[in-house]
Structure formats: C-alpha cells, structure tokens
C-alpha cells in the first residue's frame, strides 16, 4: 500500500510543480535591453563622483581614506584637486563621507565604462561636470496583480 501512496503523492507533486511553472508562462521577462532601456537609479545612488571645484580645498582627506588608492591630488594653477582613476574605484564613497568641505557628491551616473585605461582617469574638470540626462528609464516595481517587473519610469 505504502509504495502506491508514495507514487500517487509523487504524481500529485509533479503536477503541482508543473502548474506552478505554467502559470508564469505568459509573464513579461524582467530583463532590460541595455543601453536602449536604462535602469533608473534613485538619488543617493553611489555612482560616479561630482566635484564642486569652488568648495574643494585640496586637503587630500579623500585620497587618504580611499580604500583602493584611486585618488591622486593634482595641481591646477595654485590650487589642488582630486583626480579619480575609475579602473580602481570600488564606489564605496568614503571620500564623499569624509570630505570636510562637502565638495564631493554622489551622482546617479553608473555607466562609465571606457575602451581605454586612459579614459578611465577622470580629471577634476571632468568630475565637475554634472551627469548627462538620459531617457527611456525603467524602474523596478512590485505590483499586487502583476508581480515584480521593470516598468517605464513615467508610469511608476
């Protein structure tokens, strides 16, 4: 008797497993087609840095606290500013936290990959430019009926 009950249970559980999967057959995929569709990150995201040249005193605390030593202090006229090498940066933003003059800020720009190593070195002038606005953004959303999915930012 016991083997028959076991087989019956296994058959039921197999059907339960299949039906659990089949229910999701017509759901939209999560995946975004980057870079045509972009993931929109919220303010406070630890992307690349924004340097406020007017506030920076060139004290070098950012370079001291940097875990990866990706910051070099470079001279511009009679002042000193940080220069970032994004090939090493781990985006911990301790530099932003420890800046006594609030000269550094996080930005939402995360797609800063480059073809050459030299282009990953961001000069103070380049760091001072605010991130460019990009369109076609999607956000992650959980909706009761639809479940989790990526939806256009406008519709969120």
């Amino acid at each position, binding site marked *: 008797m016991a083997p028959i009950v076991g087989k019956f249970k296994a058959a039921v559980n197999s059907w*339960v497993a299949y039906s659990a999967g089949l229910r999701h057959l017509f759901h939209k995929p999560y995946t975004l087609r980057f870079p045509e569709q972009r993931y929109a990150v919220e303010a406070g995201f630890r992307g690349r840095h924004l340097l406020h040249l007017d506030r920076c005193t060139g004290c070098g605390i950012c370079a001291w606290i940097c875990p990866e030593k990706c910051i070099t202090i470079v001279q511009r006229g009679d002042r000193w500013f940080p220069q970032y090498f994004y090939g090493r940066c781990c985006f911990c933003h*301790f530099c932003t936290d420890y800046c006594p003059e609030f000269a550094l800020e996080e930005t939402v720009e995360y797609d800063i990959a480059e073809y050459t190593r030299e282009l990953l070195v961001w000069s103070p002038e380049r760091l001072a430019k605010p991130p460019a606005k990009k369109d076609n953004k999607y956000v992650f959303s959980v909706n009761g009926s639809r479940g989790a999915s990526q939806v256009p930012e406008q519709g969120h």
Partner: protein
Amino acid sequence: MTTTEKPADTTGMQAMSPTEPGAQTMTLSVGPQHSGSGHMRLIVELDGDIIVSAMPDPGYVHRGIEKIIELRNIIRSIPVIERPSIIDASNLNHAWVKAIEELQGVEPPARGQYLRCLINEMNRIMSHLYWLSIYGVFLGHTTMFMWPLGDRELFIDLAESLTGARITYSYLVPGGVRRDLPKGFAEEAIKRTKYFEKRLDEYENIFFKNPLFTSRAKGIGILTRERAIALGSTGPTLRGSGIDRDLRKDEPYAAYGELDFKVHTRPGGDSYSRAMVHMDEMRESSQLIRQILEKLPSGPVRRKAPIVVPRGETYARVESARGECSFYMIGEGGDKPYRARYITGSYRNLAAIPEVLKGVRLADMPTSWWSIDYWPVEADR
C-alpha cells in the same frame, strides 16, 4: 628464479578482480574551475559511482585578507572585509565593526542597531536566494536558477535605496550606519516582503515538493547531530542536523535581543533538511524585516567613533548567512589592528564536506555538498 614462480606483479591489475566491490577505486579531480565545485577542487575517490572518500582542496581563491587589513586603517578595510562574500556583505562587515566597537567601548544608537539588523536580514535572504539558484542549476532545474536570481532584485533594489549600492554596501561603520532610511522605504519593504513570501510558496511547489528534488535530497548526504557538533559546523548546516544554535538568539547582538523570531531547525541531517532550513530562514527573515520596520526607534543612526583600534584583545562574532563569522582582534592603539583573525561560516563548514559526501553516488555529489552552502571565496578569504 625457477620457472614455476610467477613474476612479481608491478601493474596492480591482477591483484583483485575488477568486478569485486572495492577492488579498484578511481580518483577524480572535480574543479577547481568546474561548474559543479565552484572555485575549489574536490578530490573524489570513487568505487564504481559510489564516493569512497572526498577531500576538499581549498585555497584556490585565497587573497590574504588578514594581511591586507593589518596594513589599512579600519575604515579602508571595510570594502575588503566584504569581498570574500559580496552576496552576504553586511553580515561580514558587522563582525568587523562589532570587534572594533568592543575595543573602543562605543555603543551605536538604537536606530543604528535596528538598521544594522534590517540590512543583515535583507542580506541573509539575498544570500540564501543566490544559494538556491545555484542549487537549482546543480539539479538541472533551470526555473529554480532563474526565479531566485530574479527575486533577489526585490531586495537588491531595496538595499540600493537604503545604502546607495546594490551589493557591496560598506553600510556599517564603527559607531552605527552611514545613512538613515529613505522616504517611502518602509511601505515599499512591507509590500515586497509580502510578495516575496507568496513567491516562497511557489518555490515550494515547483522545487521543494517536486519529486525531482526530493528523490535526490531526502536521506542523502547525512550529517548526524553528533558529527555536526564534532566537526564544528555552524549556521544552516548545524541547524539542518537538528541543533538549535543561532548567535542571534544565543548571544544577541545589535537589536536582535529586542526582536521576536524563531530559530528553525530540521532533525534529518540530510540534504533535504539543510535545504529546508534555508527556506524557513528566508521566510523568517522576511517577517523579521517587517518587525524591524515596525519597532524602529527614532533618533540618530551614527555616533562619533575615532579611527583608532585601542590597545587590547577582543573576539566578536555574528551569525552570517552561512554560520558564525568571527574576528579575533589585537589592537595596539594605532589606526589599524596589530592582528585580526578572520573566520567565516564557510571555513567552519569545510570539515563537513568529506562527511556528507562519503557513501553518496557521484551524481548526488552536487546536491549533497551544495546543501552545506559552502562558498569557496568566503572560506579562502
């Protein structure tokens, strides 16, 4: 030598008949760059397709983190501490800040403690989901590979709004946490945890009750209660052998003493029990997130703490997703520790791998050893 004497057998081929059980064993090297072993080599001795003995060969991804943190100040060490297991970053980070705070005598504010528990529980779920997806693909269950990785996004996205980073948070610092809750976080977290619990029911239906899984996990890869204690297992591996041991309950740290939660155990000690412990813990952590957000006190999240490791010795441990993660630290008054011994849950569970693999079939090897949730990078450090 007379003609009647046989020449000495140098090949070993005639020693025993190959058909006799135990006559010949074959040594198989699984890994270190094998999808079934992670970044580790498993030296498996086989008799037919039964594993006679299995010996893990760790160290392939050793990075010398204990030496690195002797050379950096305590803040600069935080991203390095997280690297062994970026899927469980905040729990490892917690052990580090706990050791420093014990030496400094700094107590973080209550809200900071709760936020630490919040990110720890989110991390525990993310780590278990990652484990589950790999478990699925080890068993050839592609849906179970895709679903947990997709649902991990629920918590990665939440963690991103809380900490600013998706995986490597560097969120816990000596004295508290770096940021307060963003606006609308609590409502979104409650919505997502409720949705996640519904998803866990679906996981049970498609995978944990599925005969494809149960027939390959029940009664296989047994680690008995006695052996689990003798081998020093921790975390879900220990709880899967029926031992009620969880540092969050036994030695409450951060805000865990004020939270009401259950430690889940399963008596079986087999692959199935260990897998189900992970499943129960995900459900418990999800409820715990809601409880933390309900009980969250107001006030500051961070207290001033100097970048100094005072003279002295301490031993701090926390319950990470894979078991006890501990730091034994010696300070000599500088900005870096003189010595910090770093032991993670995976390293403690390493000894259980030969035990669970003994006597199982080669085809059951991935099911058995991955149920321990051994993360080679975390163990090698």
